[in-house]
Structures are given as C-alpha cells and as structure tokens.
C-alpha cells in the first residue's frame, strides 16, 4: 500500500476511539485519522477509553499501553471480558518495539500492534495493513 494511493475518505464516518495519556501523541493520531475522514474520540486513559467505547461503539480502538489509572493491559482485559464489547477490534500502540511485545499484545487480546512514533508518512499505511486483516472491517473500507 502506498500512501499516494490511499484516498482521503478511506475512513469516512468511522467512529474510532484513540486512548493515549500523552496529549501530543493523541492529537497527532486525531489529526491524521481526521484527515482520512474518521470521527475520532479521544481518551487519556483506559478507564476513560472504556466509557467512550460503551458510548460510541467504535469500529475499532487504538490504545497506548503505558497509562495511568487503567493501562492498556487492563483496558483490553475489561474489553474482552464484556460480552457487548468483545467483538470490537483493538490495536495496541507501543512506545518502542521490544522483544515479545507483539506476542504479549496478541495473547492479551489485541488484534495487533503499532509502534510509535505516529507519523503522517507511515501511520495510515501501517494501520490499513492491519485493518485489511480484520474481516468485519476490511469490506467496509472506502478503497
């Protein structure tokens, strides 16, 4: 997937919840996803994120791991143990690729993971590569 090939409306009208305790990182994600047409709902920790997910029932969730109050592990545990939410795909956001992170994230219930930094160059490509792997979402992409 080349960035140039990605239409600006690929995520039009998708509700996406992004959870991150770093305001800068959160805002960058919001701006980029917004640029492709998504309705981004931001939360600054896992607890807020859960409330938000229940409220808007997003297409998918992107969650940072290291956060105060309820971290990414706690969030995915709650999400996957709630019958009404367990079908919502979640993608982990890690600070820096560490050995075993991917396995650990998938074992905990995340669909996959993305590595920071989120940049305008690569974020949307990497995200779409993961989304095409999720059958319920792949068909709804505006591509």
């Amino acid at each position, binding site marked *: 997937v080349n960035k140039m090939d990605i239409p600006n409306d690929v995520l039009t009208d998708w509700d996406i919840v992004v959870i991150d305790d770093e305001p800068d990182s959160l805002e*960058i994600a919001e701006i980029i996803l917004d640029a492709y047409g998504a309705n981004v709902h931001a939360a600054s920790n896992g607890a807020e994120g859960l409330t938000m997910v229940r409220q808007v029932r997003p297409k998918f969730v992107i969650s940072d791991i290291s956060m105060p109050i309820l971290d990414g592990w706690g969030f995915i545990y709650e999400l996957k143990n709630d019958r009404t939410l367990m079908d919502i795909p979640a993608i982990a956001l890690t600070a820096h690729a560490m*050995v075993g992170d991917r396995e650990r994230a998938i074992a905990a219930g995340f669909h996959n993971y993305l590595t920071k930094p989120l*940049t305008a160059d690569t974020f949307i490509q990497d995200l779409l590569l993961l989304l095409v792997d999720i059958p319920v979402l792949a068909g709804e992409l505006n591509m």
Partner: protein
Amino acid sequence: VKRLAMKLLGISSLQRRILLLLAVVLFTTLVIIAITFLTVVSNAERDAWEGRQSEAARNATSQVANFIERMKVELEFIGQLAGDSAEIQSLIDDRIKQNPGLLEIVVVDRSGAILAATYHDEPVLARLLTIRQSNWFQTTTAGNEGTVYLGEVQLSSQNEPYMIMAGPTHFGGAVALRLNLIMLGNVVADIRLGETGTAFVVKSEGSLAADSDPGAVVNYVNLAGRPELEAARQTSKWTGAYTNFRGKQVIGTTNTIPGTDLIVFTEVEESEVYAAGHRALVQLGIMTILFFDGTMVVVTVFLRRLLFNPLERLQSGARAVEKGNLEFQVDIVRQDEIGRLTEAFNAMVRRLKAHDAERDHLIQDLQAAKRLAEDNSRLKSEFLSTMSHELRTPMNAIEGFTGIMLSRMGGVEFNNKAERYITRVNVNSKRLLQLINDFLDLSRVEAGRLELAHQLFSPADLARRWQTEIGVLAEKKNLGFDLTLDPDLPDLIYGDEEAISKVVLNLLGNAIKFTEQGKVSLSLQNDGDQWRIVVSDTGIGIPPHAREYIFEEFRQVDQSSRRKYGGSGLGLAIVQKYARTMGGTVTVQSDLGQGSTFTVFLPLEREHELETLGRVV
C-alpha cells in the same frame, strides 16, 4: 568365591579380621599344645600298661609253670617207687588224695600191664585195653630219657577237660597222670590285669588247655592258624595287638612254659589300655574349647574397649561432621594413640568450623556486593527505560507535528520558505530519533538487558519482509535488490526475529546508503550447524585501514563520509553486539570502489524431529 567368603566372614571389617586372625592363631596354638600333651599322656599310659601286662604275663607263666612242675615232681616221685603193686597202689591212692590236680594215676610195667591205678572221677587210662597202642605209652617207653609226654586236651564222660602227662619208671615201665585242666583253669582265672585282662593256656598246636571259662576248653577251642599263635610259636616271648579268638581287639603277651609246648597268653582289651588316653582327649578337648572361648571373650572385650569403640566413636563423629554438624567433638577417653588421633580430629573439626565461619562471612560480603551490583544494574536499566521514554516522547511530537504540517493535514497553510524550514526540522528530528534509538539499543546490549526470544520462525518469510521494507528504499535510489534463498535452509528454525531483523536491516540500510548505482543483494545460506546472512552491495567500499574500526561506536570511515552520508555511527556496533549476543559473528570483505560484503554467521538450531513428525501427521 573369595568375595563371597570374605562377605560371609565379614572380612571387610577390621574388627572381624583382627579377631579372626587372633582366633586362628590361638586355636592353632591350643591344638598343638593339646596334641603334644595327649601324645605324652598316652605314651606314658601305654608304657605303664606294658609294664603291668608283662608283670601279669610273668605271673601267669610262673603259675602255670608251677602247676606243671608240681605234676612233673609227682611223675618223677612215682616213677622212682620200687616194690610190689600193693605198695605202689597205696602210695598213689595217697597222692591222688593229696593233689587235687590229679584225676587219675596209672602205673604200668614195660609190657603195658597195669601195676597200680587210682582215680577221682572215673577210670579212663586204666580202662584202656590198648595201653600199648596209646601215644603216652609208646612215647614214654621209646627210651627218650628225661622227656615228659603231654597229651591232647580231652574230655571225660562228665565233660571235664583233662590232659595226659606221662613219664618212665626206673624199672622200665611208665607212669601216666590225668591232669585236671579245670584246676589249671582256676590257676589262670585268678590272674587279674585291669578290668578286662585275662590269661589262658594253649598247646603249641592250637588247642586251648586252660581258661578262666571252662566251657571254652570243653568246646575244643583251637587257635590253629591264628596269627597271634603263629607269632607266639616263633619265639618264647611275644607281645602284639590283634583281634583275639573271642573277637576282641586286644594287646596280648605270650610266654612258652620251658620244657613243654604250652603257651600262656595274657590279653587285655585295647579299649581299656587307651581308655585313660581317650578320657584325657575328651577332657583336654573340653578344656581347650573353654579356654579358647574364654580367651576370645576377654580379647574381644579388651579390643572393643581399647580400639574398636573409640574408632566407632571417631567414625560417628566423622559422619556427623560430614552431615554438617561442625559443633561435634569426640570424647577423649584415654591418652593413647587413638586418644591423640581423636584430639587431632577434634582440632581439625574446630579448624573446619573456623573456616566455615570465615567462608560464611565471605559469602555474606559477596552476596551484599552482588545485591549492590544487581541494584546498580536495575537502576541502570530503569534509567535506560525512563530515558528512552522521556527522550522519545518530545521527539515523537516534533516529528509527528512537522510531518502533519508537511502533509497539509489539519488545514495548515504556509509558504515555500516555511515548508523548507519545516522539512529541515522534520529530517533532523528523524535523525535525532534514530540516534536515540540506536544509542538505547546499544546501551541495552551492553547492560546485558537484551533478552532474546527463542521461537520458531521461517527465515524465508522473514527475508521477504525485509525485502518489502528495503525494496522501497532501493527503488527510490534506482538500485536493484536481489534475494537468494538456499533450498537447504530448514523451513523453520529457532531464534529471535526482532534481533536478527535489527542486524540485517542495519546492514541493508547501510548498503543502500553507500551505493549510488548497481544493486544490493541479500542471500540466506545453510552452513552446517550455522546459517549465513550475506549482504553485499556495489557501493563505495571500505578502505583497508577502516575495516578494523568500523564496528566501534561513533566510528565512520572518516569525517567527510559522516558529513556526506550522515548516520549515527552506531549501526555497525549494534550489528556486531547483537550478533555476538545471539552467539554469532560478523565479517566484512570489501574492494574500495567495488563494493562491500557483510556476512553474519548465526548458530542454526533446527526444529526438533518430534515437532516435524507431529506436523507431518
């Protein structure tokens, strides 16, 4: 067999060995003493018996000889009588009354006619019608002066044994006496020798003439052909051991009565002769065994008290020490060699205890030092982790926002100049982020905090991922990219994909950076118990002098190269450190201006056979 014997006898124990040796020596000594003593005793006993027997034999011989002599005296006395028959008759009537040994007396003339005859029981000689034909008459009248005829042992009609003795008269006739062998039997019956000793008289041709048991004589017992008789006939005096005609094992002595063919046997049963010896043997045997047992008990008790018990205490002490009880001290009972050994043992244990205390102290010190080092290491690790987060977060923000501006997202507007400047900020933030990441990677390896995964992965799939990632960069510079996979390389091997990727992506990144035209090649090869990843390019190459230090941190070929190509100078250091941590090596070959080849050797750990089987099934 030897081992079995040793096991049964308990030879493996020193105590048993010493006691066994002592027992053997003591027992042998006792047996030798007992045998010597017994020999002396039985020799003395036999000598004593020999003396007694020879005395008894002499006595018996002289008694029998006396009897015969008295009869001879009668014979001669009657033979010298002169006068008429009536005179002779009255004389012989008187003699037969006087001498109970006489049963009958007959006096005949030269022609064999009876001149006078008398008898106690019945007439035997006098009734003979054929006196002339009788042995005694013919022998006596044959003119052999001085010889006395002694006839066979015969029985009267009352079954009383007798023997005829005859001699000449001075007038040319003959006197015959019938001797009462019961009287002779009474004579020998009176002879006593110990409990079983007996005497009897035998004529040299073998017939029994007198015995304490008259029945034997009556039954015509004959010793003819018996070895003791043969031996007795050879010499006038003989002694020997034999089984006698009564079937008894005896020691016998024989004497011939001078002037007759009568042999006196004196016999005593061998069992009586050796009885004392046997009693001595039994008593001595019992005494020997008692003495042996007593001595062994005493020796055992002493050995246990002096040697084995202290040794056992020492042994249990050693066991206790072996089990870690260094407080143990063995009691010292005596100041002998064992006492001194015990003292030395106790001293050794005290010393050991001191050493132990010293060692425990050292261990505590070392543990404290180790804890400190671990704390330091943990602090360093925490520091690294915090630093990586704290450094990256602002850099991520800078790169993120400049990237958004350059992509015109979020509705921002700016002019060309601003775009140029923002681009510089974005590029530099990327460089700085790369430097920070490299630096943190390197620090993590050096702090020993790099934890390697050990998971099955497909090297071919991994290589294709690298191809996707690097292919884009190669395309941008119009470079070719070749991927070669060795068919011998296993489908799945063990390793850490992330760490291997870090090494290979660094090498591939360098190859593209330093190559202006041509191509970059990646090749995966099987190499026995290793596998190789070869990255080659057609770039500028590395001058020989630089090959020595390109793997060091912050070293590039030279300063102009740094300005021209950028980069942190940490890439190859990371490559080498990661490869080494995985148990591998990195080598480089290069021709200046022609290109470079980096080869990474990694240990090859195949999928286990069972897993393969499992998948095939």
